[in-house]
């Protein structure tokens, strides 16, 4: 099998398909409507739903913080502020990435466009890293200065263990959620689902792309 034979075989595919393909005029007639429709429909309903829930949650927490400021425990206010800031940051990064992915010029050379797309896609992992950081505040929002007495020593020890464990876990996850750990069991357990698989796949393709360019 030589080069010419390969090309002749491929050309035979071309010749036959030219006779079997017809372009429906409707594609062209409907073309002007494609821009808006494709852009609006490019997000999975579940993702859109999660973003809406996230925004509603942030609005709710903002309202609670403003209306209870100075009237409730400082632990609650500070915990809520940390939680709402991290959630806002995650939503912001996620929306920014979605918009940037839409704006990548796909008429650029394959390696250039794919590198941009894959880097943007894989950086979605930052959203997960940031969201895990809020873990410790779920163990502090209910605290009150009146609880810090010697009678509550045992409870305080448990509380401290719980808060510092969650703090350690959140920092550990923030540092360790990265592509290098993609083969680890805990990583697969966290990210082996339909929502995250495209992100993990993007990371794997980055390696292929690097190899291809060299």
């Amino acid at each position, binding site marked *: 099998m030589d080069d010419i034979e390969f090309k002749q075989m491929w050309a035979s595919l071309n010749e036959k*398909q030219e006779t079997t393909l017809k372009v429906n005029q409707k594609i062209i007639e409907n073309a002007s409507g494609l821009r808006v429709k494709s852009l609006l429909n490019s997000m999975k309903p579940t993702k859109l739903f999660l973003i809406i829930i996230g925004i509603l949650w942030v609005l709710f927490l903002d309202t609670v913080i403003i209306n209870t400021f100075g009237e409730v425990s400082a632990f609650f206010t500070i915990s809520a502020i940390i939680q709402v800031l991290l959630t806002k940051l995650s939503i912001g990064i996620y929306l920014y990435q979605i918009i940037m992915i839409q704006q990548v010029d796909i*008429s650029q050379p394959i390696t250039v466009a794919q590198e941009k797309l894959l880097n943007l896609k894989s950086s979605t992992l930052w959203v997960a890293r940031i969201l895990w950081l809020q873990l410790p505040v779920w163990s502090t929002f209910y605290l009150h200065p009146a609880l810090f007495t010697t009678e509550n020593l045992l409870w305080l020890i448990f509380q401290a263990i719980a808060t510092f464990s969650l703090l350690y876990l959140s920092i550990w996850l923030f540092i360790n959620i990265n592509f290098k750990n993609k083969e680890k069991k805990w990583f697969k357990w966290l990210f082996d689902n339909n929502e995250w698989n495209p992100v993990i796949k993007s990371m794997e393709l980055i390696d292929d792309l690097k190899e291809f360019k060299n």
Partner: protein
Amino acid sequence: MEQTTQNSLFETILNEHKGIFFKIAKTYCKNEDDRKDLLQEMMIQVWQSLPRYKSDFKLSTWLYRVVLNVAISYYRKQVIRQNHHQIIDFSIQDFVDTPISESNPNLELLETFISELNDLDKALIVLYLEDKNHGEISEILGISVSNVSTKVLRIKEKLKQKFSKQQ
């Protein structure tokens, strides 16, 4: 770009270069339903990218870039499948190929071997089989001409070895 210019350019692409859509979709998608969706997505992306097209650029080179970029990004196919079925009202059977390979077992083998390559090597070998010169392949893929030569040689060797094993 004016709407009428965009329409007429889109029409030209679909009439004169429809084979590009078909062959790339066939190379990247074995499943027929997925392939229909991929074809639709390719058309949507070509249409959306047209305002950025500059007439001094060779149309087929530009088109290969867009269509290959869409095909390689097709791991997001679930998103595409869910959303685009109702966007374009066109008879998809127009794009369903006849069983060409049945009449040529070697072509069937070639397609199978190509499908086993990774997404970027697939793009390279398809461009080579489309008789693009190394300069144009380099322009489409964004790698150096010498890199194209080395890779084409390597993939061809791989294909030849596979063919010789089969025969």
